């Protein structure tokens, strides 16, 4: 339940509701959408990316001299777990056609396409269990232009406008043009899409969509897709070998500069395992668990940007790594679920963000960066936020409108996960609004790819959140679920074709020594060892007393030491 002191504000929300319901029933927007200048002003004034310390120049690697998100620059200016003399590559422990790093949606799609369409065997190496990924967690939906009023080119325009026209056009075309085919691919694998009575796909709006294009599986969209893909992967143990709790920690190269596999780390036995692969796919997802700018995150436990740093050390260029997505609606209260995602589909179905006086202050379906910035502005500049008992701020997201617009019981039926999440704390979201604030959600940039998922490094392919270029500096809702399907499938295809022709030379991890030299030459002083693998949530006093094993130059430098924020002066 909400604390008593919020009653006055809740009463104002209730009072203005009939008026706002009338607005919602009209075809016009309930609040004027921003034009280009207004968008720029709110972004530059209030988006966390524009805070003075949000970015800094990185001083090593392919993006040397470029301004990146500060935590990303810290991540890249760090030591490897390994040095070349510690890794014996003369007899790799495992040999395979294709190594897929990451067992989320992109990785599973790549493995299935490689097997079904190209007869290629693969190894999926993943840090936690297969499916422990942000793919599993997407709630509201997947965009795909399937309705008669829509078209793939209109989807293109929405996506590229949402990304402020900085998206790589060929990637947006691939995303939007492959979209309808992905819907069919998933349906034939057995995904249960929400449908209308006549069998047509149920479509909803999301932020920045000009046509209803959001397909869903209640609010378990990602879970439905992910479990279907995983189940199919597990139906082919002869072709796809899944190695769980075995994250990759470095890429392996050959003497001609081709990517040739990776070194894995067994989290149980603490062994390093070398995998030689003709082609390698990075599908490691994003970095929410770096808690950029101290924000709570919607991301899964393993989202620590591992793929970025491995690829960067090997020489792959990153793109748009100065841009972070904060989801407009993370939970602000109750404290126990603070930072959790409240699906954008709540706004797609008619939910409205309101200030403490129960008034609208932004069009509910602006692109995410705009919507999030407007919420921050309302709280920080206009004093329109509601303080929580622990000192957070939040604005209301008026969910009771949804049942009023679509009929009683709609919320519980179509948003069972959301309903369940709040009712545990005595908040019935069909009757009471939610208190929300932006939460760290998505890595907009990543390892630069082309429409074949190729990188600067021959033999290295990237798909999903780990990649950069597709979304420009702002992704729209529902385009990441489509992304991991479209580009996971493409990576599977192109990495298979490459694997059939390549002849690898002598294996090496000499790039790690070269990178270490660059760090020394740039006079980088850091104790940070990456990939981080897992964040620590031990209290500070516990951390101070904890064992630190190994120096950073030894294999087996424990995860206990690899804490990004411990190394930061202001941590």
């Amino acid at each position: 339940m909400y604390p008593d002191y919020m009653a006055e504000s809740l009463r104002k929300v209730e009072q203005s509701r009939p008026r706002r319901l009338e607005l919602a029933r009209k075809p016009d927007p309930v609040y004027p959408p921003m034009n280009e200048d207004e968008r720029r002003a709110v972004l530059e004034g209030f988006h966390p990316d524009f805070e003075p310390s949000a970015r800094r120049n990185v001083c090593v690697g392919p993006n040397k001299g470029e301004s990146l998100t500060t935590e990303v620059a810290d991540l890249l200016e760090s030591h490897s777990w390994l040095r070349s003399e510690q890794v014996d590559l003369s007899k790799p422990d495992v040999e395979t056609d294709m190594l897929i790093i990451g067992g989320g949606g992109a990785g599973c799609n790549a493995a299935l396409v490689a097997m079904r369409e190209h007869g290629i065997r693969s190894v999926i190496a993943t840090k936690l269990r297969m499916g422990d990924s942000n793919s599993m967690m997407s709630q509201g939906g997947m965009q795909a232009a399937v309705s008669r009023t829509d078209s793939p080119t209109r989807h293109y325009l929405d996506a590229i406008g949402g990304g402020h026209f900085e998206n790589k056009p060929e990637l947006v075309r691939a995303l939007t043009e492959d979209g309808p085919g992905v819907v069919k691919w998933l349906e034939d694998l057995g995904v249960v899409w929400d449908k209308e009575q006549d069998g047509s796909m149920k479509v909803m709006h999301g932020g920045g969509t000009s046509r209803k294009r959001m397909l869903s599986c209640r609010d378990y969209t990602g879970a439905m897709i992910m479990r279907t893909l995983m189940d199919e992967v597990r139906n082919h143990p002869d072709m796809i070998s899944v190695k769980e709790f075995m994250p990759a920690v470095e890429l392996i190269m050959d003497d001609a500069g081709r990517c040739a596999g990776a070194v894995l780390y067994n989290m149980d036995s603490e062994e390093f395992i070398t995998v030689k692969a003709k082609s390698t796919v990075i599908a490691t997802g994003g970095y929410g668990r770096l808690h950029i700018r101290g924000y709570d995150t919607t991301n899964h436990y393993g989202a620590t940007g591992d793929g970025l740093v491995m690829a960067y050390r090997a020489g792959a260029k990153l793109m748009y790594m100065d841009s972070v997505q904060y989801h407009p609606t993370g939970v602000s209260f109750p404290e126990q679920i603070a930072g959790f995602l409240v699906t954008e589909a709540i706004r797609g179905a008619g939910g409205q963000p309101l200030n403490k006086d129960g008034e609208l202050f932004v069009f509910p379906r602006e692109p995410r960066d705009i919507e999030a910035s407007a919420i921050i502005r309302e709280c920080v500049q206009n004093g329109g936020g509601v303080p929580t008992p622990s000192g957070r701020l939040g604005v209301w997201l008026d969910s009771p409108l949804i049942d009023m617009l679509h009929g009683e019981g709609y919320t519980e039926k179509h948003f069972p996960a959301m309903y369940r999440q709040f009712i545990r704390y005595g908040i019935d979201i069909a009757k009471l609004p939610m208190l929300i604030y932006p939460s760290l959600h998505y890595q907009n940039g990543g390892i630069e790819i082309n429409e074949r998922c190729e990188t600067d490094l021959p033999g290295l392919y990237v798909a999903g959140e780990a990649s950069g270029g597709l979304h420009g500096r702002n992704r729209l809702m529902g385009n990441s679920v489509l992304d991991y399907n479209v580009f996971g499938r493409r990576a599977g295809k192109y990495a298979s074709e490459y694997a059939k022709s390549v002849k690898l030379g002598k294996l090496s991890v000499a790039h790690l020594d070269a990178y270490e030299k660059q760090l020394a030459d740039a006079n980088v002083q850091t104790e940070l060892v990456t990939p981080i693998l897992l964040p620590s949530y031990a209290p500070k006093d516990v951390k101070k007393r904890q064992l630190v094993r190994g120096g950073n130059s030894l294999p087996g430098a424990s995860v206990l030491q690899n804490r990004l924020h411990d190394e930061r002066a202001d941590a």
Partner: protein
Amino acid sequence: MGSAPAGAGGVLSSSQEDGQQGKAVGSLVTVYIMGKAYEVPAEATIMGAIEYAGHQIIRGAGCREGYCGACATIYRLPGDYKIRTGLACMTMVEEGMTLAQIPSVPAEKAIYDIEKLKPNVTAIQQMYPTVFRCVACNTCTKSCPQGLQVMDYVQAAKRGDIAAVMDLSFDCVVCGLCMLRCPAEITQPLMGIMAKRLYGRYLRKESPELAERVKAVEDGAYAAEYAELMKMGREDLSKRYYARDSE
């Protein structure tokens, strides 16, 4: 400027940054994590409490928001004989709680070719015959942290009612607690996944416009418009974008 993300008491949740825990902790309770006593914040989730105690979870945490089922936990409360079940990321600690996480639930997934199955009782019989051992004791339903009617979907599976299994098991997070508690050793969540796939593959209503759209894309119906859009400079594209109508 300066936004206000993390509050002072960020110890309770599983989505928050470290480093907040030193401050403003309210009242504490004693919980027994695998038998060992720890003082933890009274308002914490079980996952928050385990981490507050200083454990680095490897198995037993995934999405941390109630979707992935990695954090299945069993516990008892003082003076109560009942074994209780929950997701660690979603369940609050209580005074005197004694708990253990279940790192993995052994279960054998059936290997099948969905193209060779039919959405009927035969598929259930062939792939998950243990379903027919159900004694209708309802232990599965009582153990489900999602509050699903698990036994009802097991009964539906016995009747070959694939649509009902799909509907009733839709929100299953595959934490495995039902199959761990089941005296008939049924693997309910795995059967549920197969039933959902059978429904999606065979019992869905076909969407006519989807088939048409897929064909149009294959026929290159949008190629010319894509070429035009991709040629446009930022200014023209921006004009087109802001002038577009909305549904």
